[in-house]
């Protein structure tokens, strides 16, 4: 179904985007990817996805600003922050900006799927979609 997505991954590292996309796609999730904040906020997937995986360090704008903008545009979407370097302070700020979960890098396939399933409310892929 064109124009309908489950997950949007926002990360400036291609290998992270590709790896995450491969894993999620293999689980039957439809994944879109964006390489920076602006293209993420302009991405067509933003309208339909249920989960955004967002890096906190993006080349064009601060991850926290992206989070706030996402929250404004899609108040109901789950946002899991994936970051390689987060202090307790960063995490508190991210939660305040609307993050619903954290997934510290680097993660393996199992950890990624656990975080994604948790964020999607334990709902299996493709079972409940916005119509």
């Amino acid at each position, binding site marked *: 179904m064109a124009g309908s997505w489950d997950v949007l991954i926002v990360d400036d590292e291609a290998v992270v985007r590709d790896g995450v996309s491969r*894993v999620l796609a293999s689980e039957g999730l439809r994944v879109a990817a964006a390489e920076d904040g602006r293209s993420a906020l302009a991405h067509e997937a933003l309208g339909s996805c249920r989960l955004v995986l967002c890096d906190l360090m993006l080349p064009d704008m601060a991850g926290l600003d992206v989070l706030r903008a996402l929250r404004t545009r899609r108040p109901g979407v789950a946002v899991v922050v994936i970051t*390689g*370097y987060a202090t307790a302070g960063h995490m508190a700020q991210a939660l305040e900006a609307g993050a619903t979960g954290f997934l510290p890098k680097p993660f393996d396939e199992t950890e990624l799927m656990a975080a994604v399933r948790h964020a999607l409310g334990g709902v299996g892929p493709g079972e409940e979609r916005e119509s």
Partner: protein
Amino acid sequence: MRTRIGTQVILGAGLVTALTIGALAVLILRAHEAALVGELKRGADLLSETIKSSTHYDMLENRRDNLHRQITNMGRQQGIEAVRVFNKEGRIVFSSDASEIGRAVDKQAEACYACHAAGRPLERLPTAARSRVFPAAGHRVLGIINPIQNEPGCATAACHAHGPRDTVLGVLDVTVSLAGVDRDIAWGRGRMVGLAAAAITGSSAILWWLNRRLVVRPVEALAEGTRRVAAGDLSTTIPLTERHELGELARAFNDMTRRLAEAQRQLTQADKLASVGRLAAGVAHEINNPLTGVLTYASFLLKRAAGSPEQRQDLEVIVRETKRCREIVRGLLDFARQTPPRRQGTDLNEVVRRAVTIMMNQLALHRVALALDLATDLPEASADANQIQQVVVNLLVNAADAIGDGGGEIRLSTRATASEAGPGAEIVVEDGGSGIAAADLPRLFEPFFTTKGTRGTGLGLAVTWGIVQSHGGAIDVQSEEGKGTRFTVRLPLAAPAGPGPGG
């Protein structure tokens, strides 16, 4: 211009000795001279009286030849310089030296002055006033005059030489040599000078020796130590051989260098930690993205692996080793993110018990027995319980690693302590493990320094050190290779009064 202390002390002491002995010598010699001269004077006076009485009748009867002979004889005796008789006009009428007979003497002259000074001659004088000492031909002489009084017989004698109204008819003058006395005094003076020289030389030698032993050598050792410290050698110690003030100074010096070395070590360590922290944060951030790629792909492949068991094993190696990289990076990040401790009154026994609970399984796995010895009267320490728990866990992990697979015992104890920094509480972790080589001890707390090979990151003790330092505490390690290691963590006590901050 540098004058040695020793030289100045010796000069000062020499001067004092010289002055003291000089003053004593002057007093003694004066008294000695006065005694000798006094005795001589009495002798001369006696002689003078003897001459006067033995010539009495010769004078009275005007037997001038007799008188002359007697006076000449007297004058020949040893020690007697001259015997003279002056008449009232000051003319010498008899003398042991015949050549001066008839010579007139000025009444103001030495022999006459005592009586004639007032213008009108005195008729009677005490012995002291009748004598005088004056120099003559190479030595001093003592002269004593003896007035010859008028008597009734003199005026009524046949010669009618003297009128009845005269009181003094002439003067008998006896002079004796003071050469003997002068020799005596000179000898005494010489002896005193010799004694003074010997005393000054002796005391100078003793002072020199004492100065050399008590001052010069310790000061040289101190100066040498100071130069070495100035050149950067903070391991310098001065041998403590002296018990006096300079020994005290040397002890203070050693104490100072020890503290300087400790402070420098801590500064270097703190500096290293800070730069390693910055580096770690940067590296961790950069390396986490590629690690994410490797880990997701490898674990994805492993899950989907349809290939041979061999391929699965290869993939498992990739996943396992990537996870190891992840642990190292996390260690680095933990290290880089050391936060200031939230200190409050903390029961270290409780902290130790929690750490033990965490470690129990791992210790059992290593077949390590744990002996707990917690002080019952341990005062509360000012500490961040979580951070100190991490310290104890780190030390327990190290102790277990040092014991290895053979099994052994770890002794974990707490105790109250009083050090120069004030009262504190200590946690002691002792193991009977492999011990640490003496050469490794100084680097033990350096980041990335590890003796565990690939099993360690070299961050555990660096983090431990950082935590203890940020608590204002101290960590100390004693180790003997093959016998075991003892870590002692000392923390300051919580302020005794006032309620702690709630929550």
